[in-house]
């Protein structure tokens, strides 16, 4: 039984992107846009495979802010996926959401905060929470896979029903260390 329990835990850890996807579906999210991140790759694939979701790859993250604005104007709920290095690109475009009281749900995979190998990731990773808060975005955080569904659900309600701009930060500790050298 102990082994089975451990296996379940492992599966939950692997399947947290599925938990995000399922929760977004339960909120009738119709558009997903992203600048790719390894941490989001499974969710991006799930989104592309879903004919009921319009999935849009962006050249830079602020495009996604404006896309989410347009989607809401047209009646669609949307979500923007990015990694923390893209947050700085969004700063002025967040004015649009604030000025028009437009909902925003963005899910941000964190870099530069836990066992980071690349010093270039650290400045924006460190500044990410304060940068978002400066622009009026409310932060929620996911530290462990078992809290994914609950946090995404709370974020979706705050965004789509509360007309708030919400960023869910997924901790780098949960995403795991990036492998820089393939194991032989």
């Amino acid at each position, binding site marked *: 039984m102990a082994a089975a329990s451990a296996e379940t835990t492992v599966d939950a850890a692997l399947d947290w992107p599925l938990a995000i996807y399922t929760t977004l579906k339960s909120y009738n999210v119709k*558009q997903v846009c992203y600048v790719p991140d390894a941490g989001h790759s499974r969710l991006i694939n799930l989104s592309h495979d879903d004919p009921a979701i319009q999935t849009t790859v*962006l050249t830079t993250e602020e*495009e996604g802010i404006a896309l989410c604005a*347009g989607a*809401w*104007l*047209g009646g669609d709920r949307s979500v923007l996926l990015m990694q923390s290095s893209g947050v700085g690109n969004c700063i002025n475009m967040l004015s649009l959401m604030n000025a028009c009281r437009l909902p925003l749900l963005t899910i941000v995979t964190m870099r530069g905060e836990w066992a980071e190998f690349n010093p270039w990731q650290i400045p924006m990773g460190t500044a990410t929470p304060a940068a978002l808060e400066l622009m009026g975005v409310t932060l929620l955080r996911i530290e462990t896979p078992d809290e994914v569904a609950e946090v995404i659900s709370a974020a979706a309600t705050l965004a789509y029903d509360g007309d708030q701009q919400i960023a869910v930060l997924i901790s780098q500790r949960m995403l795991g260390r990036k492998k820089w050298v393939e194991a032989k």
Partner: protein
Amino acid sequence: MTTTFGTMDRRAAVKGLLVDRKNLLVVSGLGSPSYDVFAAGDHDANFYLWGAMGGAAMVGLGLALAQRTRPVLVLTGDGEALMGLGALLTTAVKKPANLTIGVLDNGHFGETGMQLSHSGLGSRLDIIARGAGFSDVTEIADLTHVEAFRPHLHDLSRGPRFARIKIAPGNPERALPPRDGTYVKNRLRQHLGFAVT
């Protein structure tokens, strides 16, 4: 590199595109394009940007993806388009058939003192759009061509389209649309049948 500026009056061009607009949804870029669209006649189906420079095309893309049975027109300026050139790539590869991006190109940053823009210095937005992946690229230089282009705005099956609309430099008298973005948002959503809750 020599650049010739357009001669067309911007207000006449925009009015010509929006006459008999039927169920067209319009997103306007900050500055003169928002004034032009408002001057052509305020409408519940207009969404005027007063900021978010570089975002007009993407707002149009999100709207077009959500409203596939409505034609969507983004009208913006060369400066605004230049700040968000990546949006041309994103739009071209997403291929929203109901979206047209029209750039009112006078080669200048009109709102800030008529400094020359990259377009005015020789960069070609129509060629950039083609390189981004737009197969339907039009250059419009006079009102006859505006009239000929207008029916294409309402075609829901062959977009996305890109139009470089060559207009004369110069700022007509400002015509100021509402600056309350929440009001304009709710007005558009109500027009589309979404209750304001």
